């Protein structure tokens, strides 16, 4: 009996959470479209989410591109297909690794900071204070972050892709001894516009997920420092899981 009870309770809690996230999305999107628009907040978030994430995303994709070149060389050397290394690197970086790694790294960095900031505002009554000062918290806090997340991640991923491919190129030329112009032409030969676009579409979705989870968990943060800590953890964990799920779903949808 106890098992069913706790199963039922978890099920109900999950339904409640899905419902409240859905409502949260509807409200925040609605407020995104209605004036006043807080331009300064949007700019601040663009800088926070986009500009300051550049080092993290750049380093992650650089080393991923490098290790990818090494590993695929080892693998393909076993059946004498070493010259596909360039193609493998560029396709995996643009279609998969770039968006997912950037998404996960930014989820850790930005998701956490959004949840902590909004959560702190919640527990110190700043969100209530906004309301009493005739400002809708959804519009002032949530909207700009959702917009910034959705815009910034594709840009970050595009830059990350270039850096990742460049990392592969460095290893290819200096470590594996490829000819530079051959490597470059192989890189571009099989790359299609749709590969890049698919990666960027994923990135936009991930950016939305990260900002959404940060805002949602921060907004409904429990009381005290412990509440904010939990909100931060939940934001990062749920954003990471949702990113991986969304990644598979989008890939499966556009597969082929």
């Amino acid at each position, binding site marked *: 009996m106890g098992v069913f009870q706790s199963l039922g309770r978890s099920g109900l809690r999950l339904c409640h959470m899905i419902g409240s996230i859905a409502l949260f999305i509807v409200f925040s999107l609605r407020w995104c479209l209605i004036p006043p628009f807080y331009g300064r907040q949007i700019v601040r978030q663009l800088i926070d989410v986009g500009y300051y994430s550049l080092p993290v995303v750049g380093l992650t994709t650089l080393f991923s591109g490098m290790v990818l070149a090494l590993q695929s060389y080892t693998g393909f050397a076993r059946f004498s297909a070493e010259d596909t290394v360039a193609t493998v690197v560029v396709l995996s970086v643009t279609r998969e690794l770039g968006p997912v790694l950037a998404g996960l790294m930014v989820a850790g960095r930005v998701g956490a900071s959004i949840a902590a900031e909004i959560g702190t505002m919640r527990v110190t*009554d700043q969100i209530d204070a906004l309301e009493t000062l*005739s400002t809708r918290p959804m519009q002032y806090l949530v909207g700009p972050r959702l917009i910034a997340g959705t815009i910034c991640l594709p840009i970050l991923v595009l830059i990350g892709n270039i850096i990742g491919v460049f990392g592969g190129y460095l290893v290819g030329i200096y470590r594996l001894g490829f000819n530079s112009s051959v490597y470059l032409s192989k890189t571009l030969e099989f790359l299609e516009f749709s590969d890049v676009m698919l990666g960027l579409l994923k990135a936009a979705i991930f950016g939305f997920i990260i900002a959404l989870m940060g805002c949602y968990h921060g907004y409904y943060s429990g009381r005290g420092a412990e509440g904010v800590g939990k909100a931060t953890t939940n934001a990062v964990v749920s954003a990471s899981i949702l990113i991986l799920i969304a990644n598979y779903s989008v890939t499966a949808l556009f597969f082929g």
Partner: protein
Amino acid sequence: MTDEKKRNVKIKISNLFKNFGGDYVLNGFSLSLKKSESLCLIGTSGSGKSVALKCLIGLLSPDSGSITVDDQETIGQSRPQHEAMLKRFGMTFQFGALFDSLPVWENVTFRLRQKEKLNKKEAKEIAGDILSQLGLAHQVLELFPAELSGGMQKRVAIARAIADKPEILLFDEPTSGLDPITSGVINDLILNSVNRLGATTLTISHDMASVRQIADTVAMLHNGRIIWCGPIKDINHTGISEVDQFVNGKPYGPLTTNKRETLQTKQTEISV
């Protein structure tokens, strides 16, 4: 109540109930404020004063009860109506609730700058004027809340609440944790808002000295309801032992014994 008197009622809270996880913090809370009246709400720590204030302004929704402002029911009103009502209120929170990411001058003029276009210089001037009334120098304008002392934060929060001269002011412990001189300044400011601007004020306070200074009327909250409400001059002769204990700050008495028991014995004495 005559018609004349009725018209003077600004805020009427009746029979409010509010529970958190089954614990009733407000348990039939009723209170009314006349126009341009300064009412002080007193009560022991944790008795639900802040919750009552948040229910009044609509930040928390009570389980049941009614709140009217100028004879207009505010519970269950639509969002635009609620937003319009909030514009008439100014409120300070117990712990300041200043916006961390904005400097002092932007905090103070936050609402003003949404109402009218103010450039930076004008906004800073206005903020500086209000803050100087509260004894804060111009240098604080550019500081961030984290760089201020607790008492300074409190004063900035008060400046923010009164900046656009709302008709109803709610202060949650405006003088707690302040030195006597600064408390005096804030008490004067509250009196001034009431007397000169005709604001209706509801102040939560633990500090009997400042209560005596600013209150026209005092109401005491205990076990989720008002156990006494009357003019400040009567506070020493209420005949209610809880009020006596609170006013005289005695460690032993009905407030510090079994709560449920006192609730039942006092239910008959409520007179609001």
